[in-house]
């Protein structure tokens, strides 16, 4: 599916939004899932819907349809982080419940997503969206896919070489360049946040 017509969305065209929601949904759901899946999986869908609502409110500030998905992912990520913080704050407050405690035990003391020095969670959603957009432009194929294969799917150099039909010796080169691109956008190790 192609990106929706931004002008139609900004004009409140319900039919265009109807199509756009389907196109945008995976970005909202995926970004919320990254944060909430371990502890609050039942909240993922709700956060994704709330994020789409927030996107509707902010759509007139955009100048390109390409900005829609990064912005939505930024909104969904930050909403999910807020939801997780509320969940952990409840333990310290008077409203704690047994089910919360049980969940917290399952999730650990403090998920990385809500850690104070988290390089992603510390950004406002607009800045996060900008950086995601910049990174999308910086990562040359197949750098992004290889990084995801190594860090998210935990493939070995050899598996990645086979998957992308490249020599095993070149996988490290792509990964090194991909991390360098990330460092340019986020600062070394995310320290520009």
């Amino acid at each position, binding site marked *: 599916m192609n990106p929706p017509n931004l002008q139609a969305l900004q004009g409140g065209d319900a039919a265009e939004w109807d199509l756009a929601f389907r196109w945008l949904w*995976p970005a909202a*759901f995926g970004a919320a899932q990254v944060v909430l899946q371990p502890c609050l999986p039942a909240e993922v869908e709700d956060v994704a819907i709330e994020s789409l609502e927030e996107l509707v409110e902010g759509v007139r500030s955009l100048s390109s349809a390409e900005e829609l998905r990064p912005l939505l992912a930024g909104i969904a990520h930050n909403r999910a982080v807020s939801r997780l913080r509320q969940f952990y704050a409840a333990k310290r407050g008077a409203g704690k419940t047994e089910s919360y405690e049980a969940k917290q035990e399952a999730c650990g003391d403090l998920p990385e997503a809500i850690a104070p020095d988290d390089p992603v969670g510390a950004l406002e959603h607009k800045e996060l969206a900008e950086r995601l957009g910049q*990174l999308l432009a910086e990562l040359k194929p197949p750098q992004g896919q290889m990084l995801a294969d190594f860090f998210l799917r935990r493939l070995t150099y050899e598996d990645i070489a086979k998957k992308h039909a490249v020599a095993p010796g070149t996988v490290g080169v792509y990964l*090194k360049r991909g991390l360098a691109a990330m460092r340019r956008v986020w600062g070394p190790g995310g320290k520009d946040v």
Partner: protein
Amino acid sequence: MNDQEFFDLALKVIGARASDAEREQLEMLLASRPDMKTQFEEIRDDARLAKKVLPLMEAVGSSSGEFPAYARERLLAKVHQTLGQPQPARTKRGWNWRWALGFAVGAAAVVLLLLPMLTRPAEPVIQVAMLDTAGAVRGEGSDLDALKAQWKHSEVRTFDKAGPLDTWTTNWPSGAKVAAKVIYDRAAGEVRVILYGPGKPVAKTFSVGQDLAATLRQATGFIQEQTGK
């Protein structure tokens, strides 16, 4: 060991994809080359950032996952509430407004057109008679024709005596709000017009010169002038 080889070794260890031999090799290298430790820590920080950012990157590019149908109505309501549909909504209101205005203007125009018709006096009933006391003479027929031509929808009565004409003159048609009697007195050479209406009766006499038809037109003009018809 060059930079790329060090990067590969460090990344495999950081990513838990290294063999025991590779881990040992890295430990020995960092122990013998403390300057490589900073480089290793940078790679570890970058790996940590990648683990945070890459899931979001994947979400941005993802096309899997089905939009839940139950959310559609809620989100479209949000669209309507936030962005509205200003054009169609305004157009709809505009049409209603224009329609009402158009109707009002049209109705006013109709009223203006009908008003004179409604307020104008009723079409006068015109009765025509000719008094010819001399009896049948030459030219009588053409005079009758002239009268019939002027008042096509009226019967033209002919009297040869003044008595019956006087009776006819005072006998106004029932139900007529406005009526006119036109009497052509051939002998006197005049056309008398008597108007009967809401006010006092009005009468006027026209002398017939060379042209009876012209005199009859004058009589018609007088009736129209008096009745507005």
